[in-house]
C-alpha cells in the first residue's frame, strides 16, 4: 500500500494535472487578454522554422501521397491517375507482405532486447561515480559510429575465411569457416546483434538519465520499511521509470523501422529473401528502378501502419505510468 502511494506521487510529478488540461496558458488567471501583437509574437518567431518544416517535410509528404495514386515515371512520359492500383499491387505482392512482416518482427525483437539490456546497463551506471562516467562515455561510441561503417566492419569480422568471429567461434566448437550470413537464422542473429551493439547504449543513456532524475525519498522510505532490492525495483524504480521507458521505446522503435544500411551491406536481403526488409524493397523499387508510384504507395502504407502503431504503443506504455489507470 505504501509503495502504491509513493508511485502515485512519482506519477503525478511526471505528468501535469488533468485539471490543468483545460487551462489556456495565454490568458493569465484574473488578468486581461494580451494584445494581438503579444499573442502573435510567438508565431512570428516560429514562422521561419515552420516554413522550413513545411518545405522540407510536409511538402514532400504531400507529394508522396499524390504520387502514390499515379503511375508517374521519373523520366519522360506523362503519368496518370491510377487510383488504388499501386496500393493493390503492393498489398497483393507476397514478397511485399513478407517484407512488412519481417520488418515488424525485426523491430519487435531488436527493441525488446535493447530495452532489457539497456535497462540492465543503466541500473549500475546510474550511480554517479567516476568509473560510471567513463563507462557512460565509452557507451556513446557504438551509436556514434555511422551505421554503414558499423555494418562494413561487422562484415569483415564475419568473413568466414579471415574474420575474427568465425575464428573464436571455432574455439567454442563451431565448424571452421562458419558462414553466418549464409544461413537465414544466423543472418538474423547477426543483424539483431549488430543492431543491439549499436543502439543499446542509446536506450541505456536515456534510462540512466531517468534513473538519475528520480527522487531519492521514496527509496529511503522503502528502505526504512525494510523493502528488499527486488521490491524496491519492482514497486518504486520501475513504475517511476515508465515514462522514460516509453520515450526510449518509442524513439528506438521509430529508429529501428528506419534501419537500412546494415541489411543492405551485410545481407542485401539474403539469403534468398529472408532478410529483405521493406526499406530494401522501397530502395530498389524507388531509387534503382524509379517506379515512383509503387515506391510512394509502399511508403504511404508503411507510414499509415507506423502512425497507428506508435500512438497505440505510447498509450499502452504510458497508461502504466498513469496512477489513475493502474
Amino acid at each position: 500500500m505504501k509503495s502504491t502511494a509513493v508511485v502515485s506521487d512519482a506519477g503525478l510529478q511526471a505528468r501535469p494535472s488533468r485539471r490543468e488540461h483545460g487551462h489556456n496558458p495565454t490568458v493569465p488567471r484574473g488578468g486581461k487578454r494580451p494584445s494581438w501583437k503579444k499573442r502573435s509574437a510567438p508565431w512570428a518567431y516560429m514562422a521561419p522554422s515552420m516554413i522550413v518544416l513545411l518545405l522540407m517535410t510536409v511538402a514532400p509528404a504531400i507529394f508522396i501521397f499524390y504520387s502514390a495514386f499515379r503511375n508517374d515515371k521519373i523520366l519522360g512520359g506523362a503519368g496518370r491517375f491510377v487510383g488504388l492500383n499501386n496500393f493493390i499491387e503492393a498489398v497483393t505482392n507476397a514478397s511485399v507482405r513478407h517484407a512488412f512482416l519481417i520488418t515488424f518482427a525485426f523491430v519487435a525483437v531488436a527493441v525488446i532486447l535493447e530495452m532489457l539490456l539497456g535497462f540492465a546497463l543503466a541500473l549500475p551506471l546510474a550511480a554517479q561515480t567516476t568509473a560510471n562516467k567513463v563507462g557512460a562515455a565509452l557507451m556513446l561510441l557504438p551509436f556514434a559510429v555511422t551505421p554503414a561503417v558499423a555494418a562494413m566492419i561487422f562484415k569483415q569480422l564475419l568473413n568466414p575465411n579471415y574474420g575474427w568471429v568465425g575464428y573464436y567461434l571455432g574455439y567454442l566448437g563451431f565448424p571452421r569457416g562458419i558462414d553466418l550470413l549464409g544461413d537465414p537464422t544466423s543472418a538474423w542473429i547477426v543483424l539483431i546483434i549488430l543492431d543491439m551493439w549499436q543502439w543499446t547504449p542509446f536506450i541505456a543513456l536515456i534510462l540512466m538519465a531517468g534513473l538519475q532524475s528520480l527522487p531519492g525519498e521514496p527509496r529511503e522510505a522503502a528502505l526504512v520499511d525494510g523493502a528488499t532490492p527486488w521490491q524496491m525495483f519492482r514497486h518504486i524504480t520501475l513504475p517511476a521509470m515508465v515514462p522514460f521507458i516509453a520515450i526510449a521505446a518509442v524513439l528506438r522503435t521509430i529508429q529501428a523501422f528506419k534501419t537500412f544500411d546494415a541489411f543492405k551491406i551485410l545481407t542485401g536481403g539474403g539469403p534468398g529473401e529472408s532478410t529483405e526488409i521493406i526499406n530494401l524493397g522501397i530502395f530498389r523499387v524507388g531509387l534503382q528502378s524509379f517506379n515512383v508510384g509503387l515506391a510512394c504507395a509502399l511508403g504511404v502504407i508503411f507510414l499509415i501502419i507506423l502512425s497507428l502503431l506508435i500512438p497505440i504503443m505510447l498509450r499502452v506504455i504510458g497508461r502504466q505510468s498513469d496512477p489513475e489507470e493502474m
Partner: protein
Amino acid sequence: MAKSRLVTGLGVVATAALLTTGCTANAPAPSASAAKPAELKMLYTTDEANSAAVASLIPQFKEKFGIDLKIDNQPYDALQQKVFSEFASGSSYYDVVVVDTPWAPALVQNLEPLSPYLQNKDLNPASAESNVGDFVPKVFYDTAVYNAESPVKRYADETAKPDVSAIKNAGFDVYGLPIQSNVAVMAYRSDLFNDPQQQANFKAKYGKDLKVPTTWDEYAQAAEFFTQPDKNLFGTTVMAGVGDWATDDFKTLLASFGGDGTLVTQDLKLAFDSPEGVEALTYYSKLAQSGHVPPGSTSADWGTTAESFDSGLTAMTINYHDLKLGDNVKGGTIGYAPVPKAKAAGPHFGTWMLSVNKNSKNKEWAYQAISWLTAAEQQTTMTAKSLHPSRSSVYSSIKSDNPMAPFYATLGKSLEVGVGRARLTNYTEVSHEVAVAVNNAATGSASPQDALKTASGKVSTLLKSAGY
C-alpha cells in the same frame, strides 16, 4: 629601363599569343553556333569504370581543347540516383554523363542521339565518324545502339562492323561512346598450374594432364583438385550472394549451356526458366555446395571473390577486372583465360558509355570531349591505369612485353563473344529476382527447377507492372 619594360611587355604578349595558338591549333573546329565554353562538366563513376584513368587525361584535355574538364565522381548507387535525378529535373548542369548498361533503356530518350555529330566532318577532324568501326562490334551495339522508341529492341547483327549509316537505316541511333568494357574473365594461379608437382599429382589422380580449363567440366575438376582446406586453399569462387553478381554468374552459364544469356529476349520472352537454365543453375549450385569454393561463397559478391583470390585463398576465380595477388602469396603469378564454355561462349558483359546530356548547352563540345576520350590514342594511354578499352585497335596495339598483356588479350577475346543484359527499364528488379533464385539454389534451400520457376513468375509480374 623603359626599353627593358617594352621588351618584357612584348615578350609577354608574344608568349601569350603563342600559348593561345598552341592550345587551339590542333583543336577540332566546332560549328559557328557552338560557343566555346570555359568548362565542360562530366558526371562519372568511381572505381567501377576506372575513374583514375579518365582523371589522368584532364591536363591533356585542357591542352588539346583549352577547356577545363570538371569531373564529378560518385559511387554506384549515388551515381545512378544522381544521373536519373539530373535528367528528371531537365538539368543542363552536366554536359557529359556516364551511363551503365542496365540504366540505358530507361535513360535513352534523355540522351542526345549522336549520329548527326558522328556524321559531321567538322566535328571529327581526326577520323571520320569518330572511327566507330573500330569499336568492338558486340560492345558497341550492346552499349550504345538503341531504338529510342522501343529500347528493348536490339540491332539485328551485333557482330557487324559498326557503321552509323547502317544503324540509322535500321531505325536505331548511337547514344554514347563506350569507354570501359567489363566482361567476365577467368583468372588462375599460373604458378600452381605450371608447378610440375601439381601437374604430376593431377595426372596421377585423373589420368590426364593438368591444363587451364576450357570447359565447365574441366573447371569443376580443377576446382576439386586444388581444394585443400587444410592448406587454406580452395579451387575457385562463386559470387552467389543476393545481388547483380549472382545474376551475372548465372547469365554466363546460361549462355554457355546454350540458352539466351540476356535472360529476357527482345520479344519479352523469359529465357531463363528453360532446360538450359536448369542445367546451368544445377551446375552452379553443385559447385557452390561442393566445398571447392571458400566458405561464405553463398553470400559473396564480386568484391569478396576478388579478395579471396588476391589473398591466395583460391586457385581460380571469375571476375570482371584484373587481379593482384597480395604480398602474402609468395611466388604467386596470375594467368588469364576466357571463362570456360559448354555449348557456346557467352561471358556476361556490360560496358559504361559516355553520353551527351540532351539538355546540355554545349552539346557539340561535349560530343568532341567524349569522342576524344574514347579515341584509340586516349584509350591506349589509359591502359596504363588499367582502363578496359572498348576499341579493337587498342587491344591489337598492346605489346606482349606489357605486364597486363595476358589480361588484355583475354579481355579483348571475351568481349567479342560477350552477352549483355535484357533491355528493360526495370532490369534491376528482374535481376534481383534472378539473383534470389540463384542464391536459393546455391544454398540448397530450393531446387534449381523450383528456384527458376518462382523467379519466372515474379519476373512475369514485374514485366507486366512495368507496362511490357
